[in-house]
């Protein structure tokens, strides 16, 4: 009976990342709750910086790296350079995420420095490992996008390391624009381009959509990759014309991404389902982020109001990526679990019908996850906008609930199928099942 393909890593690799990412989302919600008053007071306080790093590293980066360790070998049709390297990447990413976040929140500064060193070594290891499948010449747009996004990941971490040591040495002032350059490199360069590139492969597949022309995705990746360094440079050296040029380019790229989503939905051959709910809700937050960012850039605002709008933009970008990650996890995890179960000879669901991806999670819990995550992020963004710690904290609680629901649901579904199969009598074999 066929099981996992020759190029993909063992299921425990991507599932380990994704489980850690699920715990990261749960923790992120809690940290937002605990740090709500400080986030609202000033988005650059230690508590706020710690919360953002839990969200970006412990949740988003960990989960996305897991997905990429599965996706790149499938699309590139080449294996990772090292499975052990992938496992070390997971350990390093979890360690870096929590060292940095703890260091920011409570000190001492050596924790931040240690997290930065572990994080940079981890990212270099991941880049080397992923360079195997990403060397594929026929990987198309997704692989091209991943090459760019991994480059941005390395750049983001390089910024982070310098900033981490600057906190101790005081080489230069960590002005808000400089912090923002780092944040945007990570959110739009690394995570954003990864999502846009992966979506160009996954959306047509999951929506069964064949588009006559699919150039919007290529434009999105190209414009994001071209605009992001310019925007970061403009923020870094406080050069408004440069920041504007980069910002407009990036926003145009994000617009192309949304156009791509619209064309996929228009050409779909499947009814809308759970994933599409996540994706569409996610896209709404992207629009909110662009609106908040534009308002912060254009508006004649007091510094505190501008800072709040920028915080809204960052929170909405986290929501855009977060909802997309949780939604796609409801496809990726069942696929990986399905492959592992089939390799063990499990061919049927507890219902006795052929095993499908949809048998590997509870649909009601998944819908509750979508509701909790969407509500949580919306309430959190609103809380920052109206400077209400209570509202922000409520959003954090809902986000945390969504993380717990998603993790429990996606972890328990395959176990349920596996346990049921273990109880099946030896004589009750199905076609294609290994005795």
């Amino acid at each position: 009976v066929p099981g996992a393909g020759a190029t993909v890593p063992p299921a425990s690799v991507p599932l380990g990342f994704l489980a850690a990412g699920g715990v990261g989302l749960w923790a992120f919600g809690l940290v937002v709750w605990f740090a709500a008053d400080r986030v609202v007071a000033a988005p650059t306080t230690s508590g706020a910086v710690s919360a953002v790093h839990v969200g970006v590293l412990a949740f988003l980066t960990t989960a996305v790296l897991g997905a990429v360790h599965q996706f790149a070998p499938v699309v590139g049709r080449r294996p990772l350079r090292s499975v052990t390297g992938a496992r070390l990447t997971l350990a390093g990413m979890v360690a870096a995420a929590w060292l940095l976040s703890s260091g920011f929140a409570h000190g001492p500064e050596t924790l931040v420095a240690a997290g930065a060193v572990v994080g940079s070594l981890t990212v270099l290891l991941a880049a080397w490992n992923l360079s195997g499948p990403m060397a594929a010449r026929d990987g198309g747009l997704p692989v091209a996008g991943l090459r760019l996004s991994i480059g941005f990941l390395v750049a983001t971490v390089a910024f982070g390391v310098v900033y981490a040591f600057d906190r101790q040495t005081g080489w230069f002032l960590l002005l808000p624009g400089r912090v923002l350059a780092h944040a945007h490199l990570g959110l739009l360069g690394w995570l954003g381009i990864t999502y846009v590139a992966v979506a160009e492969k996954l959306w047509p597949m999951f929506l069964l959509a064949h588009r006559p022309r699919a150039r919007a995705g290529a434009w999105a990746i190209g414009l994001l990759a071209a605009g992001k360094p310019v925007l970061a440079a403009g923020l870094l050296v406080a050069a408004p014309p440069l920041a504007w040029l980069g910002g407009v380019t990036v926003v145009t790229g994000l617009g192309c991404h949304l156009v791509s989503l619209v064309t996929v939905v228009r050409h779909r051959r499947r009814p809308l389902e759970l994933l599409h709910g996540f994706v569409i809700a996610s896209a709404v937050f992207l629009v909110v982020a662009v609106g908040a960012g534009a308002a912060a850039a254009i508006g004649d605002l007091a510094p505190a109001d501008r800072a709040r709008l920028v915080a809204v933009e960052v929170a909405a970008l986290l929501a855009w990526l977060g909802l997309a990650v949780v939604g796609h996890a409801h496809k990726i995890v069942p696929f990986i679990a399905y492959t592992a179960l089939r390799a063990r000879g499990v061919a049927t669901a507890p219902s006795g019908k052929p095993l499908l991806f949809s048998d590997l999670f509870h649909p009601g819990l998944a819908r509750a996850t979508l509701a909790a995550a969407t509500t949580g992020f919306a309430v959190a963004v609103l809380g920052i906008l109206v400077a209400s710690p209570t509202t922000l904290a409520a959003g954090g609680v809902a986000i945390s609930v969504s993380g717990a629901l998603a993790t429990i649901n996606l972890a328990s579904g395959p176990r349920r199928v596996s346990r049921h199969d273990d109880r099946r009598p030896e004589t009750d074999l199905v076609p294609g099942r290994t005795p």
Partner: protein
Amino acid sequence: MTTAGAAEHHRQLAMTALGNVWDPELGLDVVSLGLVYDVRVDGDDIAIDMTLTTPGCPVSEQLPAEAEAAVRAAVPDANVTLRVVWDPPWTPELLSPLALQRLGFNPRS
């Protein structure tokens, strides 16, 4: 049974077996999805041309292997070879009427 009759019998067995291989994402069999392009029988040899909805599909390694295993199980004395082909590329027009109905196909689009 004549040679032609035996070949047709093997072909029917192969098609029936392929009709029990399900795409785990779409919940439809590979025949209804229009993924099976050709089944040729020549003596004890069965050659299958199959495609996938898109190159690099998550089940691109697994589904063809499952299809081949299913035909081998259905016709154990045959030499079964399955080739994944990309030309012509799969399009939704290859979906069977049943598949279109099950997928909630919207004719307006």
